[in-house]
């Protein structure tokens, strides 16, 4: 276990360096930071060159990357060119909202999706299985933003039926009561959950069917163990192991999904900040967000590997 921990931690370093370099170079292909200044038109070419020199924008790219990386890990995340405030402040300000949406959705999709997948796996080729299959397939074929739009339509309809606001279709959950917080976030969370739950149901169904076909399950049945024990102790126990790894993978998808859901519901989270920065040419903030997402994912994958190692001795031989 110690050996696994050590290897994974050592592997973390080159991965993080490669990821950060990739992000940095992708964004450096875009407009230079001075493009913003040229647009105002009230600065001469020399003045712009001077500003560029002060910030080190005229240095070779690898050098810029190294100094940016150093700054990044020292916690100096640069300044937004749109708001002229520290980028870290902007991001940390919006982070709680995105994290709460994503975390609740993850909790719900695993909490409902996994048992549901197991339930239909046991009832394979029965009506409930066909219906679930049909719904999950449709959910997976639907663009996430359209699902969100349908939920908004539902909220509007609900409003005309009840005559009052039940769920909000957009807006900021600032302060307010817990009831209002729920009214504002229920639909975004539902939209995100619905787009993710399908994958969990399908995965769990397939995995459980796979395990149920294994020799040791047949053996357990042949021994005369009650079906309940076979299911819980032998099948389920092995079928839910990979969930640890899948949670890490799904976190990335949830973050991506949050971008879409926030855009549709007009929520001020990391996703909308990313879109605003990207369209507003705020490279500094965009890069910081991409880095944050990438680092989160790299770390999450490593942690998942380690937990898997703890749970399943077969993986420990790293």
């Amino acid at each position: 276990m110690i050996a696994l921990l050590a290897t994974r931690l050592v592997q973390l370093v080159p991965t993080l360096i490669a990821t950060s370099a990739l992000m940095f170079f992708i964004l450096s292909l875009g407009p230079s930071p001075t493009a913003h200044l040229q647009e105002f038109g009230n600065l001469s070419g020399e003045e712009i060159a001077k500003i560029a020199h002060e910030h080190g924008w005229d240095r070779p790219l690898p050098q810029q990357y190294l100094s940016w990386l150093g700054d990044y890990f020292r916690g100096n995340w640069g300044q937004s060119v749109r708001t002229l405030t520290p980028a870290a402040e902007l991001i940390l300000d919006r982070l709680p909202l995105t994290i709460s949406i994503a975390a609740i959705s993850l909790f719900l999709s695993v909490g409902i999706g996994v048992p549901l997948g197991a339930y239909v796996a046991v009832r394979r080729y029965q009506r409930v299985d066909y219906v679930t299959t049909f719904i999950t397939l449709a959910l997976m074929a639907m663009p996430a933003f359209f699902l969100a739009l349908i939920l908004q339509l539902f909220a509007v309809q609900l409003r005309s039926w009840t005559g009052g606001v039940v769920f909000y279709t957009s807006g900021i959950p600032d302060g307010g009561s817990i009831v209002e917080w729920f009214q504002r976030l229920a639909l975004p969370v539902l939209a995100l959950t619905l787009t993710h739950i399908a994958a969990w149901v399908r995965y769990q169904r397939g995995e459980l069917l796979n395990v149920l076909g294994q020799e040791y399950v047949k053996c357990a049945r042949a021994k005369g163990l009650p079906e309940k024990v076979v299911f819980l102790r032998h099948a389920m126990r092995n079928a839910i192991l990979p969930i640890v790894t899948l949670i890490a993978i799904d976190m990335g998808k949830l973050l991506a999904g949050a971008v879409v859901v926030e855009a549709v519901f007009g929520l001020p989270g990391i996703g909308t900040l990313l879109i605003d920065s990207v369209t507003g040419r705020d490279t500094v903030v965009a890069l910081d967000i991409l880095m944050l997402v990438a680092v989160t994912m790299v770390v999450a994958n490593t942690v998942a590997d380690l937990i898997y190692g703890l749970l399943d001795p077969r993986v420990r031989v790293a």
Partner: protein
Amino acid sequence: MSAAQPANPAAMLSTFNAGAASQAATVAQGGMARGSVPRPAVAAEQIQSEARGPFGEFVLNFREHRAAWISTWILLAMVAICLVLPYALPSPEALDAKLLDARAPGTGGHLLGTDTIGRDVLSRLVHAGRISLLIGLMVAVFAATIGALVGITAGYFGGKVDQVLMWIVNVLLTIPSLPLLIALSSVASSDSGAAAKIFKSVPPEWRIIVIMSVLGWMAISRVVRSQVISLRQQEFVEAAIALGGSHVRVMFVHILPNTVSVLAVFTTLTVSTAILSESTLSFLGLGVTLPTATWGNMLNDARDVFIVVQYWWLAWFPALAILVTVLCVNFIGDGMRDAFDPKARR
């Protein structure tokens, strides 16, 4: 990565992502196909299958997968409509505006109505279909090409080459693709900078195709690699090497044709992922830019829920087009998986 790992993360990832339809369609056709055809004796079946050849066998198995077979026809019909109908319809840019209002479906000679500035929705839908389907198809082809090249190189040479290539694949797969797509797409469509120079004269749909292909090949390379590793052990490959076949010859003449089953299935599933990603990007305003219509950016016009409440046809028709296309493509991928490997279907 250890060999003792019980659940291969690569396989898991692909089931989790693309295998959506995998067991699903098996269910959809479940009991229907089986039992309806009387099973001939084994020997007779073998003789028959030899007479049919591998392709004939594939087609026969594929047709047994009812959902996939129907999907194929629906998709072909959609492609035909998108190719032919634009010639019979008014230009998607022609304006037939009622002041501050959109025509409802069926009024004023517009079968699916007009949008808020008076453009015919049906005409835009079929023009957009051309672009959306083109994007899906091209991304799949390019991603499959890159993925196959990387996968076969890694699997064939093994060792250091394999380690390095698969490390790159892992790193790229770790980063969620949508944020990366958003960044790349905005960089490529900006008006200055290095990327802008490259993409300046490229039509917007091809810009998106290039970006999505560059980020879409990793899953394919993984499945091809694992297939190649097992093929590499087989006698016909050793024979080809012993007979003095060059690396390139063995890789592309002897090994690659044998990966066609996984390659075809994953390429098909990439079509649906690409169509969905394009629609998401265009919906966010970062994909294909106007005046080129795609199903995604048609939905961008219907971003506001209150527009959709009033003019439902602006959102529902393009959304339905995406839904049907993606469902059909997924079913086809699934049918192909079963048809290539009839034994795996249970």
